Structure formats: structure tokens, C-alpha cells
């Protein structure tokens, strides 16, 4: 059995289990779409200035923001919580006792999360287009957008792996994950647009973390704002850092 076949099989089984598990199918998949509907329905008909001379429909803004949120949730939340549960229940240790190469096992989870992210972003964009005439990236913007999407998805997967290092057990997983990501989602303009009078210290804090940069990269795709490669670089750097932490400290056995 060659590596590609094992990888393909593994992704197939992860995918089956993913859709049959009500918790993952709901929180990872339906949640961002539900937020998208709620936010655009409540606020969809007003305008927002994303820079002094660039005004967009708020519905378009939320299509971009919820696309970013969907990726964070499908990669970071889903992988971190899923791994913590599998680590506690012994799935990871069992896998460790079989000959599947670690790289293939890890890649299969990663690729599945990226796959779910891409579907979520596509649904989000289609919804925005259909109901709010949100602009969809085309041409070279589309290409840059896809680079941001894939780099972001991989980086948030890596961060999901890394955060398991500080998650003591499966019960604590949702708390640790939400405590680490929710504040960043708020200060990075995902749920609430950052207006021009947002305090600068808050923006500075947001700029340290990857969510802010990822959100801007995604927005650039939808809002016609200039695409800054710096955003991609910051997100990728966080991803690499997370990878290093994972390689060094990741545990296959329950932490007691």
C-alpha cells in the first residue's frame, strides 16, 4: 500500500466521521453559515468605510469576515478540539502503535480541514453573491485570495496542533480554544467591523496575532481593498512557529 493510497483512504474515513458527528458538523460547518445569515440580515443594508475613501456594503464586509471565521473554525477549533478528544480517548496512542507514518496521519487531518474550509468559503461567497450581490474575487485577485486562503488554513491547522500542548484534557479543550480565539476574533474585525475610532492600542494588539492579518487578506479578496503580501507573511510565520512547537511538544498520549 503506497503513501498516496493510505493518505487518500485516511482522508475518506476522517471525512465520513466528520459529517456523522453532530458536534463537528454543526459547530464547524453550520455555525459560520448561521452567523453569516444573522449578521447580514441584521446589518446587511448599511454601508461601512473600510478606509477614509473606500465605502462598501456591510453585507459584503460580512461575507469576507465570515469566510475568514469559517476557516479559523474549521482549522483551528476543529483540529484542536478533535485532537484533544482523540488524545484522551486513546485514538492517537493506538494509531502510534500501527505502521501508518506520522506525516501521513497528520497531513490527512490537515488536508481534510483545508478541504472543509474551501467548501465553507465557497458557500459563503455564493450566498453573498446570491442575496447581497457581494463581489467575488476574479483574475489575479482570485489567485492572491486563494494563496491567502490556503496559507491561512494551513497556518490555523498548525496552530490547532500547537495549542493541544497547553490543553490538559478533552473537557478543557473547548474552553482553552475559545479563550484563545474569541478575543482575537473580536479585536480583528471579524464580528464587529473596526471603525476609525477604534482605540489604537487594541489595533496594535490585534496586529500581533494572525487572525487580524488573515481577516484582511480575505477582505482584500472581496472588498477590492489593496492586497498586502505582508498579511500572508505574518500568517505564514505564525503557522511555522506553531509547527515548530508541535514537533517539539506534541503528545500522542493523554496528559495526566
Amino acid at each position: 500500500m503506497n503513501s498516496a493510497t493510505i493518505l487518500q483512504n485516511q482522508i475518506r474515513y476522517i471525512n465520513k466521521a466528520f459529517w456523522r458527528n453532530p458536534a463537528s458538523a454543526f459547530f464547524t460547518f453550520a455555525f459560520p453559515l448561521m452567523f453569516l445569515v444573522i449578521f447580514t440580515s441584521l446589518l446587511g443594508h448599511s454601508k461601512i468605510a473600510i478606509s477614509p475613501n473606500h465605502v462598501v456594503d456591510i453585507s459584503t464586509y460580512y461575507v469576507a469576515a465570515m469566510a475568514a471565521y469559517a476557516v479559523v473554525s474549521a482549522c483551528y477549533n476543529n483540529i484542536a478540539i478533535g485532537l484533544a478528544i482523540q488524545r484522551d480517548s486513546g485514538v492517537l496512542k493506538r494509531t502510534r502503535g500501527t505502521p501508518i507514518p506520522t506525516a501521513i496521519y497528520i497531513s490527512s487531518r490537515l488536508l481534510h480541514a483545508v478541504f472543509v474550509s474551501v467548501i465553507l468559503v465557497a458557500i459563503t461567497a455564493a450566498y453573498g453573491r446570491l442575496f447581497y450581490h457581494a463581489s467575488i474575487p476574479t483574475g489575479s485577485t482570485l489567485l492572491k485570495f486563494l494563496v491567502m486562503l490556503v496559507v491561512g488554513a494551513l497556518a490555523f491547522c498548525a496552530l490547532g496542533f500547537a495549542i493541544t500542548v497547553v490543553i490538559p484534557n478533552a473537557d478543557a479543550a473547548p474552553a482553552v480554544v475559545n479563550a484563545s480565539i474569541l478575543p482575537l476574533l473580536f479585536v480583528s474585525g471579524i464580528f464587529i467591523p473596526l471603525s476609525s475610532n477604534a482605540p489604537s492600542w487594541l489595533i496594535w494588539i490585534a496586529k500581533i496575532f494572525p487572525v487580524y492579518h488573515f481577516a484582511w487578506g480575505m477582505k482584500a479578496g472581496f472588498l477590492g481593498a489593496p492586497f498586502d503580501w505582508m498579511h500572508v507573511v505574518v500568517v505564514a510565520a505564525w503557522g511555522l512557529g506553531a509547527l515548530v512547537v508541535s514537533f517539539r511538544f506534541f503528545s500522542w498520549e493523554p496528559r495526566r
Partner: protein
Amino acid sequence: MSTMDSDYTSVISVRGLKKMYGDNAALRGVDLAIRRGEIFALLGPNGAGKTTFVEILEGFRRRDAGDVSVLGIDPDRQSMALKTRIGIVLQSTGVDRYLSVAETVSMYSSYYPHPRPVDEILGLVGLVAKRNERVLRLSGGQQRRLDVAIALAGDPDLLFLDEPTTGFDPSARREVWEVIKNLKTLGKTVLLTTHFMDEAQYLADRLAIIADGVIVAEGDPETLAGRDKMRASVRFTLPTGIVPPEQLGARTTTANAYEMKTLHVTTDVFELTAWARSVPVDLEDLRIDRPTLEDVYLELTSGVVSAPSEE
């Protein structure tokens, strides 16, 4: 069985194995050989070093000293080669609850170079009827049988079962025991750890007792630590005022109860009953006990390691 290793009979051979956790010695020089095709039980109280020992053989942990060969492989050096030829049932095990029984076994099969057909495995562990059931709907005994099925996925030569029935009710234990017994007919070698005497007695061809990081006894369940050669005890009660003759060597335990230790049960019981008939007197509660595996175990693991009490 591959021809490569048909020239040796020890599937596992361990010499002078040591493992430290900080300042604590978990294993203090273990020697053990396990033969092809046998079910070998490793018995010991919690914390005796059973799991550490097994996990070193499985390649989960590294040893500090000693020689270890499992199927001719050093687990520290070629863990990948080893993993394709062993099956492991861990103490606490999880599988993805949302896959079906057959899907789960197929998934694990796909990791191995020469897997055993899924339906054949399900037949071996008696889960054919549950083939398409989701794992989360299985009973405890069925989940354990699924664990064994997963361990069989790669058609291994050697299986490790770490406390396979801990926490099970009697009927679930029986289910799992029958599956393990069946493995023997496939020619698999099984290393089982347990702290249940009846489990070892029922399943094992040979067993070893580990206590405080060393093997304190090794043998087959019937003769372990000279159990078969130990003196049986004959106990009985006599009415007040009647005393057995001195040459029988019975001593009082409580009030009118007596006990005689003997190596020659037939002769001594014959003499006792002949005397009783001649008096005549009734030997109330007459019974003969041999030391059980549990007696041997308790004696060996309590730190008092004594030789069989023969003269």
C-alpha cells in the same frame, strides 16, 4: 509465518531489562522468554511494572539497559518494522465513534502491508452481525472485541493485550476470553497482562509474576512456584472432648477445629477417616484445600518470597 524467523522459537526474548522514571526503578533487571504460539500472561499488582514492560516491547518507550528482541527486532531501533508485525490492544482504547465496525477495521487494515480480510477478522471476533453498526452503539464487550479485531487487522504474528478485561462484567469478560482463546488456534503468540488470577488460569499456557520491577516466579499455571508440590491442608471439626491421635499431626486452629498439612493426601485422609470410624465420631466440615494460584500470587507479591513448604 515467514521463513525468516522460523529458525528460532522465542518470539520475545528479554535479558536484564531496566527502566528508570526519575529516581524510581520501574524495571530492575527483567529476564523473560516467550515462545511461539503460546499465550503468556504477565501478572502483577498495579504499579509492578507490567505496562512499562509491555510498552518497551511495543516500542512506545525506550529502555535504559538490557537486551530486547521482539520477533527478532530491537523495538528501539526498528520500531516501524516491528509495528507491521504486531497487534496491540491497549488498556484504555478509543476509536472514532462515528465509523461502523467494518469501516473501522478496514481503516486500520489500510495501514498494513499484508492485512487479513476484514470479514474474516469480524468472524474471528464474532462481530459479523454488528458489521454495519456504528462503534458508539456497541456494548463494552463488543468494543473490546473490536479492539482485538483492530489488533488483528495487519495479520500480526504477535499480539499484546494489556489488561483486556479490567472493568468488565462477568459476561463481557467471558466474551473476550473466548476471543482470546481463539487466537491460539490461529497460531498467534499472545502476551497478556492482567491482575486477575482466573483470567491467567483460564487463558495462559505459561505465566510470570512481576512485582516491584522484577519477575518473582515463572511457570505454567498448575505448577507455578511449586504450587502442585505444596502441602494440601485437611481441615475438620470434632465434638468437644474428642482429640485426634497424635500421629496424624493435626493441630488446633480454633476451639474444636483442626488442620493437618500433608504431602500425601490419600494416605493421611484414609488414616484420619479410619480413626474417626473406629471411635466412632463425625468429622464435621471435612475439606481438603490446595493452594490456589491466588495464594501463590499473594504470597509472592506481598514481598515475602518463600520456597514451597516441603520438608
